């Protein structure tokens, strides 16, 4: 009783005020009210209501629209349809906007549901399918294609890529090997070297890196970006962030694509250079993957813009779910783990993602989430996979 009284006298008095005030503090200082979107009528005709693209409509895009109109008028013309689709696919990659994939698919509508459409349509279909993570359907088309037309390098290359992304390295190896006789020797080498770096130990990775460095000096200039991107990612796995950073910068100097920006941002985040991420990605918020990195950078720098970005990402994932999409699981797992701080949910997403994709980034998010959730054994599938192939990654060592 004595000590109880003493505590009472001197103890911290949270009491009525403390409890209620804590609640009210949140209520009142609760930052800005989240604006529920409401219809609005702009006041001025000159107000820009939507930025469609950061550049004027190019002659190429105008020509493409005309071509699309022609193709619609002649729905049986395969050549016209594939021309429309290829261009849409190129823009899809450039802008990272899946609306272009829809346009490409639309051009192929007459053939889309056929079991064995013409070769070129089939190749396009496979490319579109793998873009929406329908890897099994894409592989079916690609395997049939390379059987029918082993001289088509594009089918082999796409096949090798999908197999690599899904972790089927043996078959990927044969696809790489087939590229050379199909007339794409540079791609054959790059493909083989990257696979080699994933299949061997640290020594194999070093050898692959040397091979790629040598390849980039001999290969045609227009392949530099793609080769340097492979080198940068490999350098990161080898634990050479500075070298990787230089390579990313070289790629970005030539082509400002979203994928490279995201990869470079990840490297900067790992190195604690969040402020640079903010300056790199500011203005690219329309891209969900880049907004995710930006939000992580805001979190690291304690920026007030964090809450707004998290809300935006939350809304975007919700919108994707609403239409029934689950393509962004890797990104969503990262968001859930690092920004929502829900390791269990993040782990669940990372596990689902690992069933579909098996790239280093997929391994990483699963290991991280499992660790954070206090269930390191939940990532045993990654450990087994990496042991099986000998694949090493300095960044992941802490979790292995």
């Amino acid at each position: 009783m004595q000590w109880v009284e003493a505590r009472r006298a001197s103890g911290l008095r949270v009491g009525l005020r403390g409890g209620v005030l804590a609640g009210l503090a949140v209520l009142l200082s609760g930052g800005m009210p989240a604006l529920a979107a409401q219809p609005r009528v702009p006041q001025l005709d000159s107000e820009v209501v939507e930025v469609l693209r950061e550049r004027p409509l190019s002659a190429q895009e105008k020509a493409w629209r005309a071509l699309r109109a022609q193709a619609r008028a002649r729905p049986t013309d395969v050549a016209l349809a594939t021309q429309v689709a290829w261009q849409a696919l190129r823009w899809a990659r450039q802008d990272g906007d899946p609306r272009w994939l829809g346009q490409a698919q639309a051009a192929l509508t007459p053939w889309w549901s056929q079991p064995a459409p013409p070769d070129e349509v089939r190749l396009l279909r496979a490319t579109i399918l793998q873009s929406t993570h329908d890897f099994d359907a894409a592989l079916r088309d690609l395997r049939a294609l390379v059987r029918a037309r082993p001289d088509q390098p594009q089918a082999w290359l796409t096949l090798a890529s999908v197999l690599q992304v899904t972790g089927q390295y043996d078959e990927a190896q044969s696809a790489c090997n087939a590229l050379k006789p199909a007339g794409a020797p540079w791609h054959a080498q790059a493909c083989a070297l990257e696979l080699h770096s994933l299949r061997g130990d640290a020594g194999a990775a070093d050898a692959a890196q040397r091979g790629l460095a040598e390849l980039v000096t001999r290969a045609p200039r227009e392949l530099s970006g793609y080769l340097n991107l492979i080198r940068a990612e490999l350098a990161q796995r080898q634990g050479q962030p500075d070298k990787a950073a230089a390579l990313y910068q070289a790629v970005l100097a030539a082509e400002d694509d979203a994928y490279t920006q995201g990869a470079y941002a990840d490297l900067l985040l790992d190195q604690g250079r969040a402020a640079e991420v903010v300056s790199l990605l500011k203005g690219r918020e329309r891209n969900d993957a880049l907004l995710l990195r930006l939000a992580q950078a805001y979190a690291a720098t304690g920026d007030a813009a964090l809450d707004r970005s998290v809300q935006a990402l939350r809304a975007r994932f919700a919108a994707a779910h609403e239409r029934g999409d689950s393509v962004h699981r890797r990104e969503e797992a990262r968001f859930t783990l690092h920004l929502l701080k829900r390791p269990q949910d993040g782990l669940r997403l990372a596990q689902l993602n690992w069933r579909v994709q098996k790239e280093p980034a997929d391994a990483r998010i699963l290991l991280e989430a499992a660790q954070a959730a206090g269930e390191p054994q939940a990532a045993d599938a990654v450990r087994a996979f990496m042991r099986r192939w000998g694949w090493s990654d300095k960044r992941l060592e802490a979790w292995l």
Partner: protein
Amino acid sequence: MKHLRALLLCVLAWCSAGTAWPHKPSDSYMTLTAQDGGQVLVNWHVALRDLDGELSLDGNDDGRLTWGEVRARWADMLGYVRPHMRLTHAGVACTAVAGSDQAPAVIAHTDGQYAVLAWTVQCPLSAAQPWSDLDVDYRLFALSDPTHRGIVRWRVQGAGMATAREVSSVVLGVTRTQHHVSWTGLQGGVPLSTQADAASPVSNISTTSMSTSAAPPRTADSASGSETHGETHSALLLRYVHDGVDHIAAGMDHILFLVSLLLVSVWRRAEAGPGMAAPLGWLPREQWRSALGEVLRLVTAFTLAHSLTLALAAFGVVSPPSRWVESLIALSVLVAALDNLWPLLRAPRWIVVFGFGLVHGFGFAGAMQDLGLSRQDLAWPLLGFNLGVELGQLMLVALVLPLAFWLRRTALYRQAVVLPGSLAIAVLAALWLYQRVADVALGWVPG
């Protein structure tokens, strides 16, 4: 072959990019509100970006769409989208009411600005005739983008209903162009989405279309009407009740907060004064009713508080930063656990619990947002989610309270349950607090 070569240069980097698409594909958002008298209000949000792809709205092709450019083409936009959505009532087409078009407006969605295209449709229904079967047929952008989807929400608003009530929602597109709802009763009777077309992902339209033309209009049947009413709502409600229970079950911080309170709810504070043995400053309650009363007070206070803030947050009135909320929730657990060990809280516990309940409500709101609800039709989900949270709490009470009451006088309960239990909770809560305030993740900390 020329195209192949061109793409060959980039495709591998693209593929090894993991191929995740950083944007959402094209969607539209359509709300259909059925009213008495056979009218349906159509409110359709269509992305300006998509409309530009079909109609070239950007007059000067500079990539920037001004309000002037949009307004000038408003009639074209309406003319384009209108035929791509058809409503039929009992097999007979509903028609747009002349002059019912709403003035041009835009609205923001997550991936840009959308045109708000709204008008009224009259279905062939006389004033006293009941609603029967309604079909919506959706073909927007079917030709230009097969990945486009329309997210269609059905609502009803009978005379005398202040706000419309959401009754079902469906995602339509080329893989499924039609949705069938059947209606019974007047005065905003609730449409029941039939399961007939729910699971037919067939690209052939005719297989998904219902044989509505043969179906005679259903007669009003108040009994079946009210049954339908119950079913649809209970299904919707149940879903969110389930989510609410889930959240409590998965949210260790909420559970431990309640457990901390429950542990000592079978006790009462010892009066200050000599001569009484009151370890930890508590004495067992004599009466079962007194313990139950205490729990009732606590749970009521907690419920009222978190319902209030959950609603405020869900409707977007306030949205406190989640890090603060999560930190304060951790603090509340810490304080509740420490208070079991020595009295920190002077005020009656229920008042303190009310204060912390406000904070937990914001936490629930975060969880509810993650379920991906729109703000427009939150009433049912909110009610359901809240009920689920309550249900989860009551289950916990039912689990803990009888045991605690039974053991309340024993030294075992005091020394082996409350003391180490509260201590452990306090330690864990302190770790959470540290993690959340400092924004770091300690891998070995559970929760």
